[in-house]
C-alpha cells in the first residue's frame, strides 16, 4: 500500500513537472521545473533499485544540465513568454497518434501474464562471469568489461561534444600567438566575491572532490564509477569557477588537452595492445584485469571531469563574459 502511494506521487510529480518544464510561460520557470524533474527522476531510480543511475542522474541530469540550461538562458535577451505554439503540422500529429496507440499496446501487453514476463538470460550470465571480470559490482563489470566497447565510444562522444562546442566560437578566441600576457588594461578586473560565499565554497569544493574520489574507488564493489565521479568533480570545478579561483582551464595549455584526451586515448591503446599482443580486442589479460580496469577508470574519471568542467564553465580564454 505504501509503495503504491509513493509510486503514484512520483508519477504525478514526474508528469506535471515534465509538462510544466515545456509549457511554463517564462523560460526560467521552465528550467527550474526541469531541474526539479531531474531530482524527482533520481528519486524514481532509487525507488526502482538502480542506485548507479540515481547517482548519475542527480549529478549529471539535474545538476550539470541545469547549469548548462541556465547558462544558455542568459543568452536570451529578455525572459519573455516564449511558448509561441507552432501550428500543429499534419505529420507530427500522425506520428503522435501512432505512438499513443503504441502506449496502449504496451500497457495492454504488459499486464500480469505479460509478454515481458520471461526472465532474460543476460543477468544470470553476468552473475556467473562476474568472478573473472575483475570487479565485484555487476553494473561496473558490465560497463568496464563486458561492454567496454560502448564505454570507449562513450568517451569519444564526450570528446566530440567538447570539440564541437569549441569551434562554435572561433572569432572570440584570444590565443595570443606569442603567448604574451594580456596587457593589464584589458585583463578582467578581479572583483572580490562575497566573503561568506568564498568560505562556504572553500568547505564545499574539497568535500565534492573527496566524494568524487570515494565514488570512483568504491565503484568496483558498490554503486559508483567513472561517470558519476567525473560528474561530481566537474561540479567541484563549477563551484570553484563561481568564486573565480578555478585554475585557468584553457584548451591551448597542453596538460589540459592531455587530461581531456587521456581517458579515450588510454582505453584505445589498451584495446589495440590487447588485440595485437593479447588474446583479442579489449580482451583483458586474466591476472591483471582488476589493475587495468582501475587505471582506466581513474584516467577516464579525470578526463570526464575536465571535459564536463570545460563544457559547463566554458574555456576561460574562449569567450569573454
Amino acid at each position, binding site marked *: 500500500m505504501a509503495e503504491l502511494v509513493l509510486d503514484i506521487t512520483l508519477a504525478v510529480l514526474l508528469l506535471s513537472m515534465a509538462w510544466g518544464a515545456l509549457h511554463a510561460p517564462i523560460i526560467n520557470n521552465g528550467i527550474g521545473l526541469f531541474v526539479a524533474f531531474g531530482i524527482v527522476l533520481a528519486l524514481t531510480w532509487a525507488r526502482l533499485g538502480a542506485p548507479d543511475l540515481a547517482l548519475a542522474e542527480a549529478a549529471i541530469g539535474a545538476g550539470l544540465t541545469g547549469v548548462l540550461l541556465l547558462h544558455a538562458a542568459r543568452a536570451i535577451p529578455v525572459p519573455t513568454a516564449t511558448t509561441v505554439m507552432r501550428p500543429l503540422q499534419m*505529420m507530427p500529429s500522425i*506520428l503522435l497518434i*501512432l*505512438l499513443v496507440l*503504441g502506449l496502449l*499496446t*504496451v500497457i495492454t*501487453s504488459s499486464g500480469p501474464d505479460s*509478454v*515481458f514476463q*520471461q*526472465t*532474460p*538470460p*543476460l543477468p544470470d*550470465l*553476468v552473475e556467473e*562471469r562476474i568472478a573473472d571480470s575483475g570487479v565485484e559490482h555487476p553494473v561496473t563489470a558490465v560497463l568496464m*568489461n*563486458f*561492454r*567496454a*566497447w*560502448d564505454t570507449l*565510444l*562513450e568517451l*569519444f*562522444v564526450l*570528446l*566530440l*561534444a567538447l*570539440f*564541437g562546442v569549441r*569551434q*562554435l566560437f572561433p572569432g572570440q578566441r584570444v590565443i595570443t600567438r606569442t603567448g604574451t600576457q594580456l596587457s593589464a588594461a584589458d585583463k578582467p578586473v578581479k572583483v572580490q566575491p562575497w566573503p561568506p560565499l568564498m568560505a562556504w565554497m572553500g568547505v564545499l569544493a574539497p568535500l565534492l572532490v573527496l566524494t568524487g574520489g570515494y565514488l570512483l574507488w568504491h565503484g568496483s564493489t558498490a554503486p559508483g564509477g567513472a561517470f558519476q565521479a567525473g560528474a561530481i568533480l566537474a561540479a567541484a570545478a563549477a563551484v570553484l569557477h563561481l568564486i573565480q579561483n578555478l585554475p585557468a582551464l584553457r*584548451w*591551448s595549455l*597542453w596538460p589540459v*588537452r*592531455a587530461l*581531456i*584526451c587521456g581517458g*579515450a*586515448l588510454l582505453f*584505445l591503446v589498451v*584495446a*589495440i595492445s590487447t*588485440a595485437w599482443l593479447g*588474446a*583479442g*580486442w*579489449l*580482451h*583483458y589479460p586474466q591476472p591483471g584485469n582488476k589493475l587495468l580496469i582501475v587505471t582506466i577508470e581513474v584516467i577516464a574519471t579525470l578526463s570526464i571531469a575536465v571535459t564536463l568542467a570545460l563544457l559547463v564553465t566554458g574555456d576561460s580564454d574562449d569567450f569573454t563574459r
Partner: protein
Amino acid sequence: MNYALVSVALPMITVVLLFLVAAPVYSRLQTLVTGGLVIIITVISLSTSWLALLEAAAQSTTSYLAIGGWEDGLAIRFRLTPVVALMLTFTALIHLLLALYGTFSRHGVPKDYWSLSCFLHGSLAALWLSADLFNLYVTLELLSLSAVALVALAGPGAWKPAADYLLLSLAASLCYLFGVALIYGRYGLLDIAMLTVVVNDDLITRLALLLMTAGLMLKAALWPLHLWLPAAHASAPTAVSALLSALVVKAPLFILWVLWSQVAPPVMAQQIGPVFALIGILALVFGGFSAMRTPYLKVLVAYSTVAQLGYALMALGLLLAWQQPEMNSALWLFVIAHGLAKTSLFLAAGQMQTTLGTKRISGLRGATQTTPIAMFAFAVAGGSLIGLPPSGGFLAKWVLLEPLLSQPQNWPWVLGILLGTLVSAAYIFRLVVMAFDRARINPPDISSDHVGQWLALVPAVLVWGMALAGEQLIQLLGEGI
C-alpha cells in the same frame, strides 16, 4: 577481421593525436601537413579495408569477433561480411577523395575539418562492423554529432540548420533507443545474430520495429521525414555536404536493412516491403519535383539526395517483399553509385559556386565556358544519377529491373522506376541546359581552381568505371548477408 580492426582504430587514433597536438591549421603549409597526414591515414585504412574485402569474399561464412572474449549474449560482437567490408572500403575511398580535395584545391576546407572528418570515418567504421543493437545506437549518436559539428563549421549562417538537424537527430536516436529497449524487454538479447533465431511476430516486436524504423527514417532523411536535409546540406561547406550526402545518410539505411532483413521475422518483412517500395517512389517524385523548383544550386543537389534515396528504399522494399537475396546487390550498388556521384556533384557545385560567385542556378549561364571541367564532372555524375547505360547507377537500376521485367504482373514498380528516371533527368538537364547557354555568360569572379575541378571529376569517372567491375560486384553482393 584484423584488417577491419585496423581500419576502425586508425582514424580514432589520428583524432586523439590531432586533438593532443592541436596544430593550428592557418597557413598553407600547415594545411598541407595536416592534410598529408589524413591522406596517409585514409590510404592505409583504404588498403586494409580492401584486404578485409578480399578476405571476406574468399571465406563463405561471416566471421564474428566477440569483444573481450565473453560468450555470445554478453559481449558486443563485430561481424565481417562482404557488404560490411565493401562499405568500409567505400567510406575510406570517399574520405580519401575529400582529403585530397581539401589539401590541394585552393578553396579547400575549414581548418577544423580534419579532426572531425577522422571522427566521422572512425564512427562510420565502428557502425558498419557492429552487430549489437545498443552499440549501433552509440555509433549512430557519434555519427550525427560529428555530422552536426561538420555542418556548423560553415560559420554563423549554418548554425540554425545545424541546430535543427541536431535536435531532430537526437529525437530520432531516442526513438531508435526506445525500440531497442522494447526488443530487449521482449527477448532479453541485444545481439543481432542471436535475435534472428528467437524473434517471432507479436505486438511488441511490431511496435519496437516501428519505432526503430521511424527513428532511422528520420535520420536517413527518407521521404516523409526529410525536411531538415536540404537546409543542412546546402549551408554546409562543400566537402562536408559531399561527405554528408555520400555517407552519413547511408548509415541509418544500412541499419534499416540489417533490421528488416535479419532481425524482423520474414512474414513481417513481407508486409512492410511494398510500403517501403511505395515510399521510395514517392520520394523519387516529390524529391525530384522539389529539386526542379528550387532556384539554388546546392539545394538542388541536396533534394536530389532525397530523391535518389528513394531508389535505395525501393530496392530494399522489393528485396523484403519477394525475399530474393540477389536484390541486395541492387540496394548496395545504388548506395555506392549514389555516393560517388553525389561527391562529384557537390564538389563540382562547390567549385562553380565559388568561382562564379553565385548560389543561384541562373548564375551558371555559360558555365561550360567559364568552369568547363567542373561542369563536365557535374554532367558525368548527373548521368550516373539518371542511370545512363555504362554507369554504376545504370548497373544498379538494371539489377533492380531484371526481376521486374521477368514477371509481367508487377508493372507498377517498373512504372515507378521510369517515372523516377524521368524526374531525375529533368533536374539534371535543367542545369546542363543552363550551363550551355553561352549568350549571356556569367563572368567568373575569381580565377578558376583547376586542381579542385579535376579532383571533382575523379569520383565521376570512378562511378562510370564501376560498370567494368559490374560482374564481380553483383556476384559478391548477391548472396546477401
